């Protein structure tokens, strides 16, 4: 049977906020400390300990909300989400239920190479909550005890929830890339997925256009997504699996409860974990230990003023002011703010955005990736790069040698002059060039004859010969000189 299936995806993204200390106590949030050394009565849930909100966490949440075009709740408050698990010391998580700090925002997808570009993804809410501790299960599966480390317990998280507006794994990945760029640009989070600073769950089902009208498959929440690539693959896999399942049993969203499935990246499939508890079972209620937090318009305005150009705006500027194609603008902006700053500094002086963009994309990025260097630690600074490109523009450096010179600059961290010197590149004066060309013409009458017969390509042979006489010969200058000196018909 053939039905038209549309993938419906909503994302829940947990972002660990870049604070020094936890959401409700002064314990450090640094990753990798020895177990249970960053704990206190508040974050291990000792009776009588009272939480006090971290001002910076609230500010980072509001900043993110503003960047995602959200409304900021003027009177936000805290709720207890009750459940039992060994890594949750209080028996409840302090979270936000009915008055999240941010609501009703959106993010536009940007992907110049895809039809999805420009599609709007609505953000339902973004709320603050504390993280749980970390459980390490007995890896041998011999039934040994589970180890609990509360260093992570109480770390501030911002949970960003989208509407089910995404329509493919690729769109989900595009959304996440853009979100990560924004979060990094705002310095709201280090977004390190390996260390769990960015965690993504995807809710996936299918909308099926059948002869009996539109139907939907049961919703599946996918967990264990440890890279954006996994998110993309897991969604595509799940869509296929749900279609097959629907063909088998025809179960719709009303006939089966929500499932949680884990993504196995090596096997490339999802595995059933559990049937989702009803959200009412968490018995949310306002936390009596914490008071309402009031955010005024003035607070919002002062945070808004700290937000500089966001990635979408930077792409626009690269296209309008530096005349870059959308593709180039996207590649540069995807490298982060420091990279774009570097580009703009260089392009402002070189006055040829496309030339700068080509060198950054092809050579600089390749070198940085190969040496796993960040642009901050780039061995060639912006002024040296300007100097290098100016040498090319003014023909002081021939484009045939430019890549070698650039490599030399990068590997030795030297100026263009120093690099040219160490490669033995000097500019020939016109007398020297004329002499070399004359010698080549004298020694190769048969090639000249070919050229005069109309085989203009043979001139390349002559240029090659000038270069083998002196490697500092610029092919373009040699061509010009030879054309001048060729006997006329």
């Amino acid at each position, binding site marked *: 049977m053939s039905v038209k299936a549309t993938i419906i995806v909503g994302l829940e993204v947990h972002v660990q906020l870049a604070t*020094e200390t936890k959401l409700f106590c002064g314990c450090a949030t640094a990753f990798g400390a020895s177990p249970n050394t960053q704990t206190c009565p508040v974050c291990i849930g000792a009776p009588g300990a009272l939480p006090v909100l971290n001002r910076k966490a609230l500010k980072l949440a509001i900043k993110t909300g503003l960047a995602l075009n959200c409304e900021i709740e003027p009177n936000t408050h805290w709720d207890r989400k009750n459940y039992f698990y060994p890594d949750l010391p209080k028996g409840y998580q302090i979270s936000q239920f009915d008055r999240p700090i941010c609501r009703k925002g959106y993010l536009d997808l940007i992907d110049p190479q895809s039809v999805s570009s420009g599609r709007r993804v609505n953000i339902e809410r973004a709320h603050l909550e504390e993280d749980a501790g970390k459980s390490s299960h007995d890896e041998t599966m011999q039934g040994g005890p589970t180890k609990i480390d509360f260093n992570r317990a109480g770390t501030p998280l911002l949970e960003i929830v989208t509407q089910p507006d995404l329509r493919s794994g690729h769109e989900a990945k595009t959304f996440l890339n853009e979100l990560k760029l924004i979060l990094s640009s705002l310095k709201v989070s280090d977004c390190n997925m390996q260390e769990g600073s960015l965690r993504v769950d995807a809710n996936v089902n299918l909308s099926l256009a059948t002869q009996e009208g539109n139907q939907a498959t049961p919703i599946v929440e996918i967990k264990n997504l440890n890279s954006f690539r996994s998110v993309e693959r897991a969604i595509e896999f799940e869509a296929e699996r749900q279609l097959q399942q629907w063909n088998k049993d025809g179960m719709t969203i009303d006939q089966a409860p929500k499932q949680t499935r884990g993504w196995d990246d090596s096997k490339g499939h999802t595995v059933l974990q559990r049937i989702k508890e009803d959200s009412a079972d968490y018995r949310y209620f306002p936390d009596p230990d914490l008071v309402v937090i009031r955010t005024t318009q003035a607070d919002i305005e002062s945070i808004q003023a700290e937000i500089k150009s966001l990635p979408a705006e930077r792409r626009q500027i690269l296209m309008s002011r530096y005349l870059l194609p959308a593709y180039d603008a996207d590649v540069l902006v995807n490298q982060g703010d420091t990279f774009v700053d570097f580009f703009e500094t260089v392009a402002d002086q070189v006055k040829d955005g496309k030339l700068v963009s080509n060198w950054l994309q092809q050579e600089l990025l390749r070198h940085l990736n190969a040496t796993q260097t960040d642009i901050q630690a780039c061995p060639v600074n912006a002024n040296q790069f300007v100097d290098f490109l100016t040498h090319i523009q003014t023909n002081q450096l021939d484009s045939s040698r430019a890549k070698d010179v650039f490599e030399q600059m990068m590997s030795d961290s030297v100026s263009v002059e120093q690099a040219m010197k160490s490669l033995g590149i000097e500019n020939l004066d016109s007398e020297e060039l004329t002499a070399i060309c004359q010698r080549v013409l004298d020694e190769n009458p048969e090639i000249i004859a070919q050229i005069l017969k109309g085989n203009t390509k043979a001139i390349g042979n002559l240029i090659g010969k000038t270069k083998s006489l002196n490697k500092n010969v610029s092919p373009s200058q040699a061509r010009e000189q030879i054309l001048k000196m060729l006997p006329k018909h």
Partner: protein
Amino acid sequence: MGRSKKKISAEHTSRLARIELPPSQIPVVQSELESLLDFVGRIEQLDLDSVEPFFGIAIDANPMRTDRQETSCDRTDTLRNAPQTDGESFLVPPVFGKQES
């Protein structure tokens, strides 16, 4: 906007709260819970549509702390009351049993 009149289940609630309730006690607790809810439910007789929800008296107080690190507890103290530890972590009965791999 009236609260939904879904009946509370003492059995379900005790399971969520991990409170063991002998079968003989279920009807007793059930009726106690219902009378508690009835008492609180009296507020629904009032027309409160134009009244903002009330979350506390300390509005505008905004007590917050600066994001500055304070000294955490000594781990020995943190682990002191744990039924079982390995000196670094709390140890709890396995979350995943032998069978469920």
